[in-house]
């Protein structure tokens, strides 16, 4: 081998080594993650977007799970004679990253169960990836119907998109007294499109009229064109089924154009006050959420949460906390770390958490209540007629 070849092969090797080094650390979050297996602890895996547009959701869920596990360990409890440890990986909201994180949790961290992922798309991706091993997966927040259809080991702790949209459609007609509605949704997001369709069906089923449905592309910031058309239709309510970032811009532009319709929406609204520069445009809006902010148990929990993490608790934090506790209870009841035993325990579980009572139906979807929240004086409050 001459010198040039030697240098070349050295370069290739170096490159390969650096790639391996990169891929072995897919955004592990500091503090609560440890490499390799830990035979003294039961590993609970978490996956979610801890960076990027949707990181508000991912971090809240992770904090919730972390709080549940910290409390469990600090109370001196043991699960099957061991302590519990959380290993969390960042998905960056990306389906491929989420699948990589799942594989790493199962293969190298030997996670017993996974509380995650956070967004509907990435959760469905890990649900599909889990079909070989059958690791129990409980997502605190994946609302898309398709998620629990990926397999018998896949559960969710929140209500589904069709269910919340149906409830909102009926509520808008019955309680808010709306006769006409318009919808503005993101044509590139399954979540948004699913809510739009189910809301329309429910609202029209009650006898209301959906006068105008306007779409926009993911990442748009200018909605004036669509809103100008909606203004023309002069509707009672404007249904905005999306995530908080778009909502902040849409509501502001709608009020600036002089649209007087009441804004209503889904659980993606939670957190909207944190990015709004002008909360008065949101005043009187109603959205569906997973809990009522006035419940004393909720308030006490929220204070403990804020003391530990320095931010206000959102629905995602409660869901993360409850789902982690639920998973621990299921492992305890299963009496082993065998995936099938835990799945059986989840199917028969009767759980009481901070968000109330929860059981699973045959699809792995929860049977639980939902809450209607309104924004009053720049704060989230329970809706009262």
């Amino acid at each position: 081998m001459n010198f040039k070849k030697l240098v070349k092969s050295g370069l290739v090797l170096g490159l390969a080594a650096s790639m391996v080094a990169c891929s072995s650390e897919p955004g592990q979050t500091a503090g609560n993650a440890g490499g390799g297996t830990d035979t003294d602890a039961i590993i609970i895996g978490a996956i979610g977007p801890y960076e990027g547009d949707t990181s508000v959701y991912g971090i809240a869920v992770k904090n919730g799970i972390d709080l549940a596990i910290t409390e469990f360990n600090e109370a001196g409890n043991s699960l099957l004679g061991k302590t519990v440890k959380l290993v969390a990986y960042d998905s960056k909201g990306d389906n491929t990253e989420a699948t990589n994180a799942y594989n790493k949790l199962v293969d190298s961290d030997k996670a017993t169960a996974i509380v995650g992922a956070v967004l509907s798309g990435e959760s469905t991706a890990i649900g599909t990836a889990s079909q070989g091993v059958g690791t129990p997966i409980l997502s605190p927040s994946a609302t898309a119907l398709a998620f629990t259809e990926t397999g018998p080991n896949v559960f969710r702790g929140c209500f589904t998109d069709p269910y919340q949209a149906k409830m909102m459609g009926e509520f808008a007609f019955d309680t808010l007294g709306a006769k006409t509605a318009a919808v503005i949704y993101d044509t590139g997001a399954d979540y948004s499109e699913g809510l739009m369709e189910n809301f329309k069906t429910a609202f029209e089923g009650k006898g209301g009229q959906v006068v105008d449905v306007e779409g926009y592309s993911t990442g748009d910031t200018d909605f004036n064109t669509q809103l100008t058309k909606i203004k023309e239709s002069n509707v009672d309510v404007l249904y905005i089924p999306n995530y908080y970032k778009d909502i902040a811009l849409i509501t502001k532009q709608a009020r600036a154009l002089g649209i007087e319709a009441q804004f209503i929406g889904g659980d993606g609204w939670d957190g909207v006050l944190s990015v709004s520069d002008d909360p008065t445009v949101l005043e009187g809006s109603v959205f569906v959420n997973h809990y009522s902010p006035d419940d004393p148990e909720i308030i006490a929990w929220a204070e403990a949460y804020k003391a530990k993490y320095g931010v206000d608790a959102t629905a995602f934090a409660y869901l993360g906390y409850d789902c982690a506790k639920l998973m621990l209870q299921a492992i305890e009841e299963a009496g082993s770390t065998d995936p099938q035993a835990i799945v059986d325990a989840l199917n028969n579980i009767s759980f009481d958490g901070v968000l109330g009572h929860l059981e699973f139906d045959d699809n792995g979807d929860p049977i639980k209540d939902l809450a209607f929240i309104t924004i009053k004086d720049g704060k989230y409050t329970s809706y009262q007629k």
Partner: protein
Amino acid sequence: MNISQFFLQLINGLNIGSIYALVALGYTMVYGIAKLINFAHGEIIMVGSYTVFVCTTLMGMPIWLSIPVSIIVCAGLGICIEKVAYKPLRNASRIYLLITAIGISFFLQSLFQLIFTSNPKSFPTIIQLPPLTLGSFSISANYYLTFVVSVILMIVLDRFVKLTKTGRAMRAVSEDQGAAQLMGININKTISITFAIGSALAAVAGILYSSSYPLINPFMGSTLGIKAFIAAVVGGIGIIPGAVLGGFILGIIESLTKAYISSQMTDAIVFLVLIVVLVFKPAGLLGKNRKEKV
């Protein structure tokens, strides 16, 4: 078709079009003189918006003060980028400059993502003027201000390049760098001034854009930059009134497509227009008279 509705959609189009025009002015300015497509221009817009955010929300500075600060920071950043990244490559092949520009763009995006995370930040309300009422229409202050600012800046820039001594130096550098140098023009200084003006324009565009759409994130400049680049090319890159014309055309096409055809088709139609313009007028709509180039 409802006439008042159509009129409102035209105004919507002019609003977003004015922003494209402002950004396109910066692109065109730099391209006209340095013959470089400065792909980092979109990121300078983002830096301009973040500067206002840092000054007002984090440091509690009054808004009127934060605007000049942001313009100065961006002008300085423009000069720095030129000195550090483009000047050493001035005699290299164009393709290296283009790739360096893309590199600078990624660098700024990642840097701001590291400092501010990618969570969107809420931008302070800057414009607090009453809306303009024309009969039954009411046009918000953001709209008419953006429009007026972009038209005024276009006229000022055009006059500046055509009538002042510095402007004449810029045109000379644009035409023939070697000859300009022999005539005693300081090329380095002229190019620095070009970058400073282009980046100051980006700061203004960023502030106006963020007042209309008050959520800022480190990636806000990339789409805006691409749209404005198309506007500059459609109007004739290197030609100052062309940038503004291109911006308005682009904004109106977007708005009318969303209103009357389909919101998913918007980008497809915008790019189709670009292709048609380039096929029939490769130098852009106003790109006929080459002597007009700045």
